[in-house]
């Protein structure tokens, strides 16, 4: 996909405005899909942040990290600790969560980025598994092991107590100067942060720095021959994407102040890879789309159970309904992961560019059909379509 065409900043601003409008009106237009409740929309936003951060690394530089869940976990733990020790305000939690994951990414990146290709994948995987195992065993005083880290009535919350906010009988909830971190207000906090992150990501995408990252992806050797040391760029990309993951992790803690080690397991890293691939690696809004689609279908599909299925197929004769329901039952509810795995395989096999590539292929098909004169300048046309698909 050619992304070389220079897009005017004005167009980007219009694009941002449209995206903001779409995101902020989600509670309205998601109503007909049955997805307009806050918990799910928060997930859309949080995993959107996680995925766009991941895309900065994997999409731009082509370095396939299998350990990003570690940063998510670090972000969550830090945020919960900030709630416990400092204040229930989300600002310190997000700040510490992001910064600490950034530092963690710096340390891991320093080692992992010495190698590339599959070695890089395995090194990051090794570090993530190491963090996961440690969180379960030795670091139990910090992570509270299997139970997970939780808020307690007796937590110090130094800043809150200083400013005279005492917890009453119930557990305090995370808030932004009184705006609750749960429900619709929680969604708007997440949405605002997602939009800010997306804007930064857009700027990175368009910047010379982003171009250099893409150059590393297309040919790292040539990049070094031209006199660039690629390591600092990779390092920066790795740390930035680690910080995005940390931010997503702390937001998970904001919307539900609980942190468990399973967030760091490598299946969680696999999930973000999946989201990014499904949406479209290296595209702008692909990761957001992927996050939305996967979280939406996860929610819908896992809700199905046998009774719901039997009702759905009740128009069939009884014996057939049971058969069909049990076959379909393999793919929904508990078996949702099976569907996910199949879809993932199909995407990698037939559509490595993800949904974004699918859309651009469709668009090309439609425009080529509607062309009355086939001899007209098809080459230029094609290029235009490709870039327009790449931009969005």
């Amino acid at each position, binding site marked *: 996909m050619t992304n070389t065409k220079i897009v005017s900043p004005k167009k980007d601003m219009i694009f941002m405005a449209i995206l903001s409008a779409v995101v902020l009106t989600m509670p309205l237009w998601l109503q007909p899909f049955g997805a307009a409740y806050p918990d799910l929309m928060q997930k859309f936003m949080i995993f959107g942040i996680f995925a766009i951060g991941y895309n900065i690394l994997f999409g731009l530089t*082509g370095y*396939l990290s299998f350990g990003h869940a570690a940063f998510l976990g670090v972000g969550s733990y830090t945020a919960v600790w900030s709630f416990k020790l400092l204040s229930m305000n989300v600002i310190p939690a997000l700040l510490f969560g992001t910064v600490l994951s950034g530092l963690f990414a710096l340390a891991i990146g320093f*080692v992992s980025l*010495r*190698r590339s*290709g*599959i*070695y890089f*994948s*395995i*090194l990051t*995987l*090794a*570090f993530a*598994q*190491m963090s996961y*195992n*440690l969180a*379960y*065993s*030795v*670091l139990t005083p910090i992570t509270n092991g299997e139970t997970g880290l939780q808020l307690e009535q007796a937590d110090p919350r130094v800043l809150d107590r200083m400013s005279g906010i005492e917890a009453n009988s119930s557990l305090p909830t995370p808030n932004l100067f009184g705006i609750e971190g749960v429900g619709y207000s929680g969604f708007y906090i997440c949405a605002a942060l997602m939009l800010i992150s997306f804007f930064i990501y857009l700027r990175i995408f368009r910047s010379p720095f982003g171009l250099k990252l893409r150059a590393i992806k297309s040919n790292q050797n040539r990049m070094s021959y031209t006199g660039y040391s690629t390591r600092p760029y990779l390092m920066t990309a790795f740390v930035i994407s680690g910080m995005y993951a940390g931010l997503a992790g702390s937001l998970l803690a904001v919307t539900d102040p609980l942190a468990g080690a399973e967030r760091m397991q*490598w*299946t969680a890293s*696999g999930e973000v*890879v999946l989201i990014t*691939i499904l949406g479209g690696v290296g595209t702008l809004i692909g990761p957001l789309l992927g996050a939305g689609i996967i979280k939406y279908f996860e929610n819908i599909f896992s809700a199905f159970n046998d009774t719901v299925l039997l009702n759905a197929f009740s128009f069939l004769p009884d014996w057939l309904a049971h058969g069909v329901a049990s076959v379909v039952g*393999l793919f929904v509810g*508990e*078996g949702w*992961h*099976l569907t*996910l*795995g*199949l879809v*993932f*395989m199909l995407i*990698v*096999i037939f559509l*490595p560019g993800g949904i974004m590539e699918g859309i651009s292929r469709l668009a090309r098909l439609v425009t080529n059909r509607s062309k009355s004169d086939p001899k007209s300048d098809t080459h230029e046309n094609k290029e235009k379509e490709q870039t327009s698909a790449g931009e969005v």
Partner: protein
Amino acid sequence: MDAIFLQILNGLDKGGAYALIALGLTLVFGTLGVVNFAHGAIFMMGAFCAVTVEKLLTLSVKVKDESVTFFDAYKETPYLELWFGDTGTAIIDWSVPLSILLAIPVMLLIGIVMERSLIRYFYKRPHAEQILVTFGLAIVLQELVKAAFGANPIPQGAPDIVAGSAAVGAIFGLGEAVVYPWWRLIYLAFSLLTIGLVFSFLHFTTYGMVVRAGMADRETVELLGINIERRFTIVFGIAAVVAGLAGVMYTPVLPPDYHLGMDFLVLSFVVVVVGGMGSLPGAVAAGFLLGILQSFSSMTEVKDIFPGIDQIIIYLVAVVILLTRPRGLLGRRGVMES
């Protein structure tokens, strides 16, 4: 001294499993150049071959219990016991070793089908895509097994005759108290035997020699008029058989569940990287080495000095090796370095 001896044994049989899985991974990588994330799932499917055989053998029917005379009592009796009496009971007892007979053709078939229907389209694609598609395949396989067998571990028994412990201490003159489960010793012997068979197949048969030639220079072998692709397909099947047998034999040690494969996959990839991508002896050596290191680090004496070291030792070693000897212990030049 006794403790050290036991830990070495422990490490060796754990290492046996790692070595067998890593051997298959390396074989596939060396021949086909494919990074197979579904290899752990193959190991897991091997383990479930044993479960299937056990389920088939113990297909039961309700029979009136003659020993209870006061009322009609029924008990589940396997058909095999009804038909063959004590011989039937013995067959059920030996279900795990018997599963090997089923596992060999089944795993060979699974391997060949997998290669022909999916993997072969990915030879020319980037490694990242190979990883991703096989990762997806691993998820699918594991979910299918979960749907068929449920999510709980299914314990499998070793045959009664080897269910106990061997007095290895007496054999090696270390005192009577040193005992070790028979089955684990068998596992160690079995893994050594399998490794030996794979190596002799590659080194002492013409077929294996051609395969090795193909690994070294595929194009020249093809120019000599040999259908190397078909041989590589067979090699993929053999790798699947090796992993599958490792899984079958491991069931009495660890009750298999559907995510067994994923757990072992991460570890065996680390093993392959430590041994050196593409090096068969490296994979075997690293498997045993890491197994021994892991069991030593789980000794309480070591854990007192470095708390938590048993959880991370393998990953730590991998990191150190990759940074100091980037090609692994016995890795060849130029493998996966582009």
